[in-house]
């Protein structure tokens, strides 16, 4: 049996890896990957808390994660479409070069 | 009869009794893995030789008939050839991904094979959401196609991989939507429960398989078309179109890795055929009450081989599609028909309440009429689109 706080520590580490990636990498796609990773770490927390809760039959955590996965899929689709549109305009995906408001 | 039907289950329990208590779960898993690999590797060998022989007969020639009696040792000869060939990796290839790509195909496919019910009480891993698991691991085979195509550093490989991914994503939609009808009627994602729901007999002698209902027939039809595309078989073999792009994403593979890819594709075909048997053709159920003495697993594998024969027959008949035809067929024909089929399944489900005499016939005719009208109407759209003059975007 794995104690609850191991899952929480694991998800904290995963979250911080995603955060570090999103903060340090310049490529927009990698930033998006980092954001997805942070979202996933949060999802794991929901599942872990649901599993160790006193009333797991309420399925609250599971429901939240299901909706979260759905929204994450939409987020990834729109985000990548935006990146491709930006790339088409600026010919780069580096976030530092995409800094002018005027096309 | 009962003992013959359960011979593998009792045999496994008998074998496991030799192990100490603590090792029994591990032993059970290992036995199941060995059984799956053994059975399907044999089926793979038999299918390759049968495919070549049947294709030969269809094309007015003998198939391979030189190695052994009637050429039935040909798979052994092929296997020896494959294993002794040099394993060539292109110099500029991404070697790690090039190595991992065949594994990324064979592992999900083997996982998908492990949730199918092969007979009464004979399901390797029973999941409450077995169907979802099947599609989840099935979706991850696309990654292997991408890995193979991208890491080879060959334009044919890349073109083949891109075609393959586009095709697999497009045909996954009708594939999943056509199974939604079964889930709606049975009310479960468990493959075991889906088979059990088809076990009765209508009027005492007609099998109550899903394929014998209007929505089930349409669902089976859609599922088989999408399954052909998912397993990259002719007429949907664009990712490996020999006459256009050599061998697609397999171009830079040779030797054992190629054999693994080859086996993975056939196992994928077996898995998806097994799923269609489970969902629509009654799984391991016998077709007639008086044939129930034959063990259940024999029925499952008979149906599986029949489906594989149909795949081979189709391959010998239909020419390859063009890429735009492929896409318009998926999105303009299969998808609307699958959505219509879901509506029909809902009508079928809720009209169960009708109890007057002849209600079954009325339901049958009404549902079949909706499907037939939409089939003809959508089919005309596809046919008209084929006749329209093709506009080329880049090659004027």
């Amino acid at each position, binding site marked *: 049996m794995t104690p609850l706080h191991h899952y929480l520590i694991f998800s904290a580490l995963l979250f911080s890896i995603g955060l570090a990636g999103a903060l340090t990498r310049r490529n927009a796609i990698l930033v998006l990957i980092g954001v997805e990773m942070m979202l996933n770490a949060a999802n794991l927390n929901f599942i872990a808390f649901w599993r160790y809760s006193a009333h797991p039959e309420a399925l609250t955590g599971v429901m939240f994660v299901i909706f979260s996965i759905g929204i994450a899929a939409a987020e990834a689709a729109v985000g990548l479409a935006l990146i491709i549109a930006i790339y088409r305009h600026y010919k780069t995906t580096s976030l530092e070069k995409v800094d002018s408001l005027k096309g | 009869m009962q003992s013959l039907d359960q011979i593998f289950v009792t045999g496994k329990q008998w074998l496991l009794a030799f192990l100490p208590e603590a090792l029994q779960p591990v032993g059970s898993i290992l036995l199941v893995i060995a059984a799956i690999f053994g059975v399907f590797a044999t089926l793979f060998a038999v299918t390759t030789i049968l495919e070549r022989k*049947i294709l030969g*007969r*269809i*094309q*007015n*020639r*003998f198939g391979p008939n030189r190695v052994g009696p009637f050429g039935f040792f040909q798979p052994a000869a092929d296997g020896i050839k494959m294993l002794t060939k040099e394993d060539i990796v292109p110099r500029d290839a991404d070697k790690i991904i090039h190595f991992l790509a065949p594994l990324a195909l064979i592992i999900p496919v083997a996982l998908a094979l492990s949730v199918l019910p092969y007979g009464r009480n004979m399901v390797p891993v029973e999941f409450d959401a077995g169907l979802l698991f099947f599609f989840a691991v099935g979706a991850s085979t696309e990654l292997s196609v991408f890995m193979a195509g991208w890491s080879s550093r060959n334009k044919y490989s890349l073109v083949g991989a891109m075609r393959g991914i586009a095709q697999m994503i497009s045909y996954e939609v009708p594939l999943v939507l056509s199974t939604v009808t079964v889930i709606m009627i049975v009310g479960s994602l468990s493959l075991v429960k889906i088979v059990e729901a088809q076990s009765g007999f209508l009027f005492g002698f007609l099998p109550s398989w899903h394929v014998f209902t209007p929505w089930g027939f349409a669902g089976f039809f859609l599922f088989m078309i999408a399954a052909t595309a998912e397993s990259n078989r002719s007429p949907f073999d664009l990712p490996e179109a020999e006459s256009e792009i050599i061998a697609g994403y397999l171009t830079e593979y040779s030797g054992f890795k190629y054999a693994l890819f080859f086996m993975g594709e056939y196992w994928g075909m077996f898995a998806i055929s097994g799923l269609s048997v489970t969902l629509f053709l009654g799984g391991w159920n016998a077709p007639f009450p008086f044939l129930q003495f034959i063990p259940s697993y024999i029925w499952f594998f008979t149906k599986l081989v029949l489906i594989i024969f149909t795949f081979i*027959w*189709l391959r*010998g*008949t*239909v020419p390859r599609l063009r890429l735009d035809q492929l896409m318009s067929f998926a999105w303009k*024909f299969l998808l609307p028909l699958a959505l219509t089929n879901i509506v029909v399944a809902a009508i079928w489900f809720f009209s169960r309440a009708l109890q007057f005499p002849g209600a079954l016939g009325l339901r049958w005719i009404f549902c079949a009429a909706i499907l037939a009208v939409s*089939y*003809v109407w*959508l*089919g*005309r759209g*596809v*046919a008209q689109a084929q006749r329209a003059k093709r506009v080329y975007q880049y090659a004027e």
Partner: protein
Amino acid sequence: MLGTGIIKGMVETARNFVGSYHDPERLTTVQYPEERLAPKENGRSFPFLVFDGNDQQAGLRCVACQICEKECPPQCIYINKSKDKKPDYVGKLQFYPATFDIDISVCMSCQICVEVCPFEAIKMDQVFELSTSDRFGKLLLHKPQLAKPNEYFHQLHPTDANEVDARLGEEKRKAEAKAAAAAAAAAAKLAAPKPAPDEPTKAT
């Protein structure tokens, strides 16, 4: 309606599949090394040289005129003209090929050498089992391998061979008649004091 074409095709292939077990029309393949098809009269593979009589050296029709060597599109024929002469089928003295090689790894079976040969000396063969482990030596055929008797030619292409024989017989007869006439004239001239110059006129 969509799909009818596919069903028609499936029915046809199913008939092929089932028919291949009982209908020879639907299984036209021949099991080659054990069974063979009878050769067709107009079939051709690579050229060979025709000789009359029993002796391939004496009866060889080729006079080493080298037309075929010049006309050959892939240039696979190599001829060396002899220094001396030998009599041909009409008894006239002609050059003959000292060497006559055909590189059948280059030959494309176009039959142009046969078309251009004025002496009916080169014809097309029908052997095709020429595979060998030595792709340079064994695929360069020399005169002894190339020379084949006229009977063999008759066997392969009977119509063509009869036509050729008739034409050659006609020429031979004419030549003999001419020779006889010349001989008669010579005999007549011999009676007369002045002899006629015999050989130079014949050579033209």
